[in-house]
């Protein structure tokens, strides 16, 4: 067996990587956060599975928005889901591209409001949560999950934590710590999928867009997994801004995002960030998440 020191080394590397991502990955030229005089916007981004690709893709978006908006827009990739809620104020962020759960929490805690939703290449601004197992596990229902292991994505995700908790509750499982032999958090949707494929966990959850993307890349994944449950659709990625940012800045930003499809440069940026377009977002898009939170918070 390899020495424990290697495991420690890997953990240290991951930790350092997270810190580096948080400290250094501010995409775009240096500037202060938005100060009501139009000097700059600092927008947070939640991390994806491949942080390096993500940094490059979002750098292009930051450049585009800076040019079109006439103010300096910087995007900073956070170290993990939910980090944004903790760091929003200390990082002096003006807004963020948020997954649905973080967005719902940010409306309450940080006085943010939804501005624009990203529409993915499948022409969908929404994703679903999937709960899945390996087909050869024999698990098809909640009652067969007792004593097995489950991998969630992160406590700050709708598809990767909130939805499975709701589903488990609706299927009679209130105490996950007692019901499962082990539960863990993978940190990314793709990792949750691989954890189940590899046998590190019996049950996993992930958002549909990532799940389907993995199957498109490698159809054998679909042949080995079985989806047990699907959530209602929730917004996948929403640009949310502080309510105190001037309305004209928000409207201009929304207009720029909505019109990206009408210029060659805009389309090129959308292509790079793997989106079809942006559309206006509203509070009602998040009603389903509020209901889910209510179910989970019930004693």
């Amino acid at each position, binding site marked *: 067996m390899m020495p424990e020191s290697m495991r420690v080394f*890997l953990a240290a590397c991951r930790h350092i990587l997270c810190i580096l991502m948080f400290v250094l990955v501010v995409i775009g030229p240096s500037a202060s956060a938005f100060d009501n005089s139009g000097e700059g916007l600092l927008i947070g981004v939640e991390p994806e599975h*491949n942080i390096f690709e993500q940094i490059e893709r979002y750098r292009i978006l930051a450049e585009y928005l800076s040019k079109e908006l006439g103010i300096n827009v910087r995007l900073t990739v956070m170290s993990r889901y939910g980090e944004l809620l903790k760091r929003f104020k200390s990082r002096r962020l003006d807004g963020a591209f948020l997954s649905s759960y973080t967005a719902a929490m940010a409306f309450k805690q940080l006085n943010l409001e939804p501005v624009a939703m990203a529409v993915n290449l499948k022409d969908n601004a929404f994703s679903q949560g999937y709960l899945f197992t390996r087909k050869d596990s024999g698990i098809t229902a909640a009652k067969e999950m007792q004593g097995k292991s489950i991998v969630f994505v992160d406590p700050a995700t709708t598809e990767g934590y909130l939805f499975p908790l709701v589903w488990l509750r609706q299927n009679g499982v209130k105490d996950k710590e007692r019901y499962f032999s082990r539960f863990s958090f993978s940190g990314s949707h793709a990792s949750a999928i691989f954890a189940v494929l590899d046998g590190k966990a019996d049950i996993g959850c992930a958002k549909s867009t990532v799940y389907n993307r993995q199957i498109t890349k490698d159809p054998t994944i679909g042949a080995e997994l079985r989806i047990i449950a699907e959530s209602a659709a929730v917004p996948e990625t929403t640009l949310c801004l502080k309510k105190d940012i001037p309305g004209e800045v928000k409207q201009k930003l929304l207009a720029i995002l909505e019109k990206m499809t009408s210029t060659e440069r805009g389309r090129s940026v959308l292509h790079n960030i793997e989106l079809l377009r942006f559309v206006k977002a509203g509070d009602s898009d998040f009603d389903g998440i509020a209901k889910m939170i209510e179910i989970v918070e019930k004693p």
Partner: protein
Amino acid sequence: MIGVVMTGNTPYYTVMHDAFSKTLNSMLPAGKKVRSIIQKPFPDPIALSNAARKLIAADVDLIVTYGSPATLAVINEDSGIPIIYAGVYDPEAIHAKGPEITGCGYKVHLSSLFRHLRTLKPIATLSVVYSTLEEDSVRQVNELRALTKEQGVGLTQINVKSIRDIKNIDPKVGGDALFVTGSAIVNSWIDEVMAVFKGNRPTVVSIFPDLAEVGFIITLFQSPEEQGEKAAAMVVRVLQGEQPKNIKPELLKNTELVFNLKEARSMGDINPINLIAEATRVIK
């Protein structure tokens, strides 16, 4: 007194047995000791059968087996002596069941290991090293054959039954990657197998950990220590009077994925980011 039959002299089973012995000693009541007779025959059915018979003749209280071939050899003797197995690949497939049999097996999803390999580099031809003397190794080849056929990948089988077979391996058959099965014979002679490909070093993946540190690039395996510990706990229960039929067999699923980044870098143009993210351990 307990008897132990190990399938060959493989590091994987040796580590398992070390964990077994340590756990057994720690679980026994103070002052109580258990004597053991250990057999590590070459994984040939006759040699394994002889090893089992020696233990039966020595009138051991129970027999601990490591690996499918050793387990099957002891089961076939039908002695009525309790059998606790460990390190058996997918025990259900060999019907390792009976009133006097229980133990701890493992299962590795070969498709997953193959998938991780393909994220690293394109694979048109895969070579697999196995031994027809070991049925678990043969089962793994059968699984791989179905998998590669389904994915349009060529499969070259390298059967190792003796050291002479290794000397006869054509170094050019390495293909795009070499898959080392859980064969005790192959893993006992892994240095010799790797030496064949010296100068034309293949990308090697395995379902056993790289205990000999020969440079497997990806390993997906179940902990040998955990299996040894679980087997020891079962042995203690049997020694205390429980019937094996009342002890539920276990199938380990806590997989470890180890990625050898140092070796992978020597392959040149690769994209290891997904493996770095998914591995439970990265060797740098």
